[in-house]
């Protein structure tokens, strides 16, 4: 009896190995990509360039694994709504979903909305050796852990880079700013409205805190004081808001209070901004002469430090697995494929920065991008930390509270009064939502 089973297993393995060498020549022969063959999984996704990339390559995945993937993608707000409804109903029909762990990670984790990936990552029969967890940049990988559990796998690694107009800087005899004060001086010198604004950044209530967090940490502040109180009305936070508001109100465009990422991007693309501090992933777009008026005229530099040094803020969209799914094996196979080196490489070469070390050090890519951009982006990505959003269960709500305060200050209201009111509100929210320590 035992012999018969043994023969069967060996036979099955041989067949699987044979199949795999045919369909996946690049894959390790011993890993069974077909282990969930015949399953159908549903991906609830954010409509984005990475999702488009997966969709375009899905036939390849279906051929490799025999798993059918139904992709449902929506713009950000309908996506969040749909996801919240499905997860609160403990719906079994979602298997994999897009998530932003830096923003809603703690909220989702305490709600029990993330499946634990740790056992899968450590299981050689579930995880292909080629996928190689150690290829992920450590800082980025660890930003996806809560309570010792791996809750998601990053599909990008974004930091905020200083983009500046090299032509304008050269003409004015300026060097790229090495501190935030130098940035302010440069903005003053180059500000020439309405043709060029000195410095443009996000000001919308939902968007401002992310960019502003750079000032908060550069001035020695943080979201929470060491004794556990809201850190948003400390002297450091106030000086951070003051400089941010001064920069944007004096050297920004007239629409600063309403600026989201799209506006910041458009201003730079159209040549109307001398400097912006925003997503490192926009480099490809800025270099495209068909879409950009500043192709060949810009350079990238490190986000400048403030009086207390610098912390680079990390942002990543990621893939998570639903804990309510009963097709977790298939879901995990899809997640590995979607975040594999083969899938991420073309995106990285299109200047969408990926979380894999091997891609950042790829000599071919390195030779294609501008040296200043490369060095700044590389340095920042390796040490970036998830500080762009308040690290709490109620992160989205606190982000809005802080965002409204900054937004009001940008509209000319008293920064200190705004921050004090926001800190009070934040303390109330923390009291209600944070697990007692």
């Amino acid at each position, binding site marked *: 009896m035992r012999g018969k089973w043994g023969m069967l297993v060996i036979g099955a393995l041989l067949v699987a190995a044979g199949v795999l060498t045919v369909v996946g020549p690049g894959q390790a022969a011993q890993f069974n990509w077909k282990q969930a063959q015949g399953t159908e999984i549903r991906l609830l996704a954010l409509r984005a360039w990475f999702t488009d990339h997966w969709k375009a390559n899905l036939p390849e995945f279906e051929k490799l694994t025999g798993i059918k993937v139904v992709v449902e993608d929506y713009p950000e707000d309908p996506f969040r709504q749909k996801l919240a409804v499905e*997860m*609160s109903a403990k719906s079994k029909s979602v298997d994999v979903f897009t998530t932003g762990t830096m923003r809603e990670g703690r909220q989702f984790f305490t709600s029990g909305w993330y499946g634990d990936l740790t056992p899968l990552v450590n299981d050689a029969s579930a995880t292909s050796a080629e996928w190689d967890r150690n290829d992920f940049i450590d800082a980025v990988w660890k930003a996806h852990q809560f309570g010792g559990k791996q809750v998601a796998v990053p599909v990008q690694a974004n930091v905020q880079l200083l983009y500046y107009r090299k032509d304008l800087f050269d003409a004015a005899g300026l060097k790229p700013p090495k501190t935030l004060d130098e940035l302010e001086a440069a903005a003053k010198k180059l500000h020439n409205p309405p043709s060029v*604004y000195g410095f443009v950044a996000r000001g919308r209530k939902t968007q401002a805190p992310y960019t502003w967090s750079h000032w908060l940490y550069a001035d020695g502040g943080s979201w929470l004081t060491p004794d556990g109180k809201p850190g948003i009305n400390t002297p450091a936070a106030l000086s951070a808001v003051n400089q941010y508001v001064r920069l944007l109100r004096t050297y920004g465009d007239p629409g600063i209070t*309403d600026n989201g990422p799209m506006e910041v991007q458009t201003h730079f693309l159209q040549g109307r901004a001398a400097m912006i501090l925003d997503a490192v992933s926009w480099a490809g777009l800025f270099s495209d002469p068909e879409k950009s008026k500043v192709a060949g005229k810009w350079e990238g530099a490190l986000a400048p430090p403030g009086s207390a040094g610098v912390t680079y803020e990390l942002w990543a969209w990621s893939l998570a697995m639903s804990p309510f799914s009963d097709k977790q094996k298939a879901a995990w196979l899809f997640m590995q494929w979607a975040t594999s080196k083969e899938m991420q490489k073309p995106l990285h070469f299109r200047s969408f920065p990926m979380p894999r070390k091997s891609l950042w050090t790829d000599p071919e890519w390195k030779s294609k991008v501008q040296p200043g951009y490369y060095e700044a982006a590389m340095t920042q990505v390796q040490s970036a930390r998830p500080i762009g959003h308040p690290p709490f269960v109620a992160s989205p709500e606190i982000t809005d509270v802080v965002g409204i305060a900054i937004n009001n200050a940008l509209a000319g209201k008293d920064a200190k009064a705004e921050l004090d009111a926001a800190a009070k509100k934040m303390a109330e929210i923390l009291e209600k939502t944070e697990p007692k320590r």
Partner: protein
Amino acid sequence: MTAHATRGAPGHAARRRPAPGLGRWIERHISWFFVLPAVFFLAAVVAFPVLYTAGLSLFRWSGAATTSPAWVGLSNYGDVFSGDPGFRNALWVTLYFTGVSVLIEVGLGVGLAQLLNREFIGKGVARTLLILPVAGTPVALALVWRHMYNPSNGIFTWFAELLYLPPQRWLADANTVLPSLILFDVWQWTPLVMLITLAGLVSLPSDFYEAAQIDGATPWQVFWRITVPLIRPTVVAAAMLRFMDSVKTFDQIYVTTQGGPGIASQTLNLYVFDQAFQYLHFGYASALLVVLFFVILGGNLVLVSVRRGQA
């Protein structure tokens, strides 16, 4: 027929009339059975969600799989009415936005319908052009308007410069954001009011107008004494439609301002969205929805009384 059946074979009769009382009852009330599917359908898609929302508003729940909803009685409502500045702001913004835009839409819509209710060259073209905004996708239109309102390079800014007006910041300024959004809403929805009113005007009986003409009434008298009273029910119906839609406006505002700057354009509907789907306060959001429901109900009752009171 009945007598005949009872005289036949007993088994046959039993099959045809299993219970004479029940059969007669069904026959008498057969009309109720025809509407039953509709009743069940309505119960499932309308009554259930409303009752579920009302029920959920009595709990504190984050949707978490780790904790179950906690019964809090009416305390969500207590929070809504006592200590929530976000709610007060949202209620005010909603009433302001809805009130002003519906008033303008009804006024303009009736005027335009009056203009289009006569023969002139290019009438068909004019009507088609006017109806176009209604046919647009709100999200796409909102993106277009967002660009048009851009303070540095939008077309409105260019227009204002042309007229030597001081520079405006439109959506980026708390003082101008609501008027700007109202202008967008008026542009998109006035044609709907116009269309409904026009349909009403076309169907008005001509005898009154002939009588007025014979009596020598001025055009203004004809409009004010005949057209307005006759058309009022139609206009009120259009106003009701616009009111309900306007209170619930979401995509236009979310895409253009996300409720900003600050919370200057955060309507109740946007506030509920944030509470439910960004902050995961499902119980509190349900309480807000129940309040929103009564706001809509109250507004409609006012409009109904306008129609009944003077028609």
